[in-house]
């Protein structure tokens, strides 16, 4: 059962993410895919995450497919202009990559090539709109026609907690209007705050047009917690979460982080309009079975 089918059937979808290696080999992707294969519907393949050069997202997506795991190819606006982005969608679709997740992308300033030219020729709304036009209207941005048109399931991202808070549901509305069919969110540590955002999303009727998958991560260490709170753009760690994870001995932070993640998944699954969960676990794939088991979420890949 594909991710699209799982969501359409009303089942609780689970996605995770794999960050491709810095090197010309797919061994690490195969290892991570083996860990995740029986537990998730699909896996995001990040696009030079954090503006650090890694193996290309399309290549990582093909490797995941070969390893028996459905990919969600991430596509940022940071490094490619409208010509390259459209070309990449055609190539990915031709080779069987169906899920495409569109995002603005981190600024190059935060990565390993801060001297790079930031492209941002299109923004994420414009890229979604472009890909939708390619698929549904069989046209490029230039107006020239396509044959055959690409087949793709379009995803977007949103951060429910970043200012301006009053505009965040509307912003998702723009992405849905432009073509987003599913959305994965930034880290959710506070299910109640997420619930308030979801109420706005439901008021706009967005959950009827777009599957919503909140992002949940498992904190592995105090260092990771501090990094997430202070260094990752757009992530907000509430004080009670911070105290809870610092309240256990340092060698038990990972176990407590996994418990917290499982609890958060259960709370989110109970919110009206939540279609699944996106596990933000790049580099910590081995934690996935434990978290999902504890949360009581089991994805049977044979489509039970």
């Amino acid at each position: 059962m594909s991710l699209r089918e799982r969501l359409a059937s009303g089942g609780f979808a689970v996605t995770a993410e794999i960050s491709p290696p810095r090197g010309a080999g797919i061994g690490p992707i195969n290892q991570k895919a083996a860990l995740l294969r029986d537990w998730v519907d699909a896996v995001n393949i990040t696009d030079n995450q954090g503006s650090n050069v890694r193996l290309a997202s399309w290549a990582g997506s093909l490797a995941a497919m070969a390893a028996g795991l459905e990919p969600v190819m991430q596509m940022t606006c940071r490094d490619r202009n409208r010509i390259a982005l459209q070309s990449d969608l055609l190539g990915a679709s031709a080779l069987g990559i169906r899920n495409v997740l569109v995002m603005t992308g981190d600024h190059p300033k935060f990565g390993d090539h801060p001297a790079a030219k930031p492209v941002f020729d299109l923004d994420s709304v414009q890229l979604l709109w472009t890909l939708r036009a390619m698929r549904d209207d069989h046209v490029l941005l230039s107006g020239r026609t396509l044959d055959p048109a690409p087949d793709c399931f379009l995803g977007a991202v949103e951060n429910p907690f970043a200012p301006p808070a009053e505009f965040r549901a509307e912003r998702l509305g723009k992405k849905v209007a432009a073509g987003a069919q599913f959305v994965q969110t930034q880290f959710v540590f506070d299910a109640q705050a997420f619930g308030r955002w979801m109420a706005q999303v439901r008021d706009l009727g967005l959950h009827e047009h777009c599957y919503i998958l909140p992002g949940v991560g498992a904190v592995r260490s105090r260092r990771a917690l501090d990094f997430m709170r202070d260094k990752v753009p757009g992530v907000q760690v509430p004080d009670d979460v911070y105290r809870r994870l610092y309240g256990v001995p340092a060698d038990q932070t990972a176990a407590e982080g996994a418990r917290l993640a499982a609890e958060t998944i259960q709370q989110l699954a109970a919110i009206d309009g939540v279609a699944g969960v996106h596990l933000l676990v790049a580099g910590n794939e081995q934690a996935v079975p434990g978290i999902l088991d504890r949360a009581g979420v089991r994805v049977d890949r044979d489509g039970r």
Partner: protein
Amino acid sequence: MTTRPPIPAHPRLGARLAYRLQRALRPRPGLRWLSARIEASGPTRAVFTGAERQTKQDLFGCRMCGQCALPVTGYVCPMGCPKELRNGPCGGVGADGSCEVYPELPCVWVEAYQRAASQGRGADLRLLHRPIDHRRWGESSWLNYWQGRDEGLWAVAAGDTGHEGPSTSIINHPRRVLGGS
């Protein structure tokens, strides 16, 4: 052409006054006639464009993209966003509303939302902005605006909920062949 890098700029014109000026300067026959006369003369056009550049640079940190979004962004320039986002803020805005790239400066979209909402224009931020035409950097957006060439810059989302899809194509069909200037 080379331009200054995008850096968030705080507008020096109050939102209320900006919207008043917008009403006074909206396209109408007199301004259409005047702008056509200005365009007809190369030197006049250059002087006019230079004056616009200076004025808008001082007031809004304008970088002369030539496709002005200010009327629907609370008169905060989105081209000051380090990612040049035309459709709203990225997900990296700090909890205090700061820009992720320049943490000492406010995010242009946070300011845009506050200013537009304060004047009852919050719905402007729901418009879908088409990709800009990079050939138009350096042009006078005032002349483009009065001549009606900016009409395709954004679109309204269609459907009952307003979220079922854009009412028009993403492809912008400008009224004239671009280039030259």
